[in-house]
């Protein structure tokens, strides 16, 4: 029975792959991508997309982690509950709404888009940093203190390595959402792959639309597995054995 399900699943995947190949040919996607006048345009859209993602994510990572760490320090600990509440409220706000609001207050272009995306990506990163460090078993911190470590070293050598796995989950969520939202940033004039997708939908050019949608999908999937790789590299061996 189990073997049967496995085989059905494999067969399904192969058929889906074949269908995708046939579709790519039929809709003219292969032709479109091999057009020497079109692919520099597509490439420049991909670069624009990556540029916005990298910009907003790097700022968001720095601010998010710093905010998360700051909120676990004893001086700011009492604000952690309120901040957590605000963050979860912020996360219920749809991405399109965030972009639309950024546009109506800051105007169009990639600046407002990067700003909106940064704010939106800070939320999961800060939240998971906070949760990760709060979840470090107190006996470990006590042990470190007993060994005479100053707070800075406790943070760097005990708290962050132990929280790394949860922090990386936050980073992964932020990154995947970010890549998907940059595709919407075209609507407020920031360019990116959304250009191909939305134009393709509007003028009903299937090949153009797929030339935008497929690379974005691949980008998101690659980013997701890249985070899986980061986890192998950054999470210490002992923690991975436990998990």
């Amino acid at each position, binding site marked *: 029975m*189990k073997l049967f399900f496995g085989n059905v699943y494999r067969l399904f995947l192969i058929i889906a792959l074949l269908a995708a190949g046939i579709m790519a040919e039929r809709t003219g996607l292969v032709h479109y991508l091999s057009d020497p006048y079109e692919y520099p345009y597509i490439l420049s859209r991909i670069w624009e997309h990556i540029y916005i993602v990298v910009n907003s994510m790097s700022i968001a990572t720095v601010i998010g982690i710093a905010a998360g760490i700051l909120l676990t320090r004893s001086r700011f600990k009492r604000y952690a509950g309120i901040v957590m509440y605000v963050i979860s409220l912020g996360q219920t706000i*749809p991405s399109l709404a965030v972009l639309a609001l950024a546009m*109506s207050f800051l105007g169009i272009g990639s600046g407002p888009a990067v700003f909106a995306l940064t704010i939106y990506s800070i939320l999961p990163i800060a939240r998971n940093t906070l949760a990760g460090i709060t979840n470090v078993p107190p006996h470990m911190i006590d042990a470190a203190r007993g060994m005479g470590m100053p707070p800075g070293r406790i943070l760097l050598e005990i708290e962050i390595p132990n929280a790394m796995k949860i922090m990386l989950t936050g980073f992964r969520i932020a990154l*995947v959402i970010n*890549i998907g939202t940059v595709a919407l940033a075209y609507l407020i004039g920031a360019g990116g792959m959304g250009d191909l997708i939305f134009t393709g939908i509007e003028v009903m050019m299937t090949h153009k639309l797929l030339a935008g949608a497929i690379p974005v999908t691949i980008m998101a*999937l690659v980013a997701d597995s890249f985070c899986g790789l980061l986890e192998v590299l950054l999470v210490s061996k002992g923690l991975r054995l436990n998990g």
Partner: protein
Amino acid sequence: MSTLSFIYENMDRVLYLTWEHIWIVGLSLLIAMIIGVPLGVLITKYENLAQRVLNTANVLMTIPSIALFGIMLPILAFMGFGLGKFPAVIALVLYSQLPIIRNTYTAILNVPPEVADAGKGMGMSQWHLLKEVEIPIAVPIILAGLRTAAVMNIGIAAIAAYIGAGGLGVLISQGISRTYEEMIIAGAVLVSILAIIVDGAMALLERWVTPRGIKVQRK
């Protein structure tokens, strides 16, 4: 202020779009639940199927929403459903699968073994055990999955306005193309408020359906 007067002057349209938005999200959530919950229960019985199903759902979740609309468009266009509510509902159903399946799966796996054993000891059949013991205990966590899915779907349904599904996203999309600031803000704020209200309502529902025994245990 002018945003409020915009909403007030266009009350009929705003109400209709809100209703449309709720309708799309509600319908897709219902379908997603009908597919997702049995699937989640099923994969607790077939362990090696579980990883595959969860991975597939995870990949679906990773696909950016506008890209999924785009990829589905030519496929559904063959059947004459390329634009409109139909593809939007399909996409929303697909996106809801991961939170619903994952929560059902973990909830049923986490039913305390002694409770399941007690049920077995009372002579319950497997179906009976599922109906009387496992599902009632799992319901709060399953609802938490539905809540995640609902909030996410409200956001994605706003994007679906671009493939002609209607809903509050229409205010945002038309506002952006007309540079009509009040309209954009009205759309964005209403979608956000809808998401926050649904989130809160589902949280209340979650508390309400939690069996009394579990609440006592938590205290």
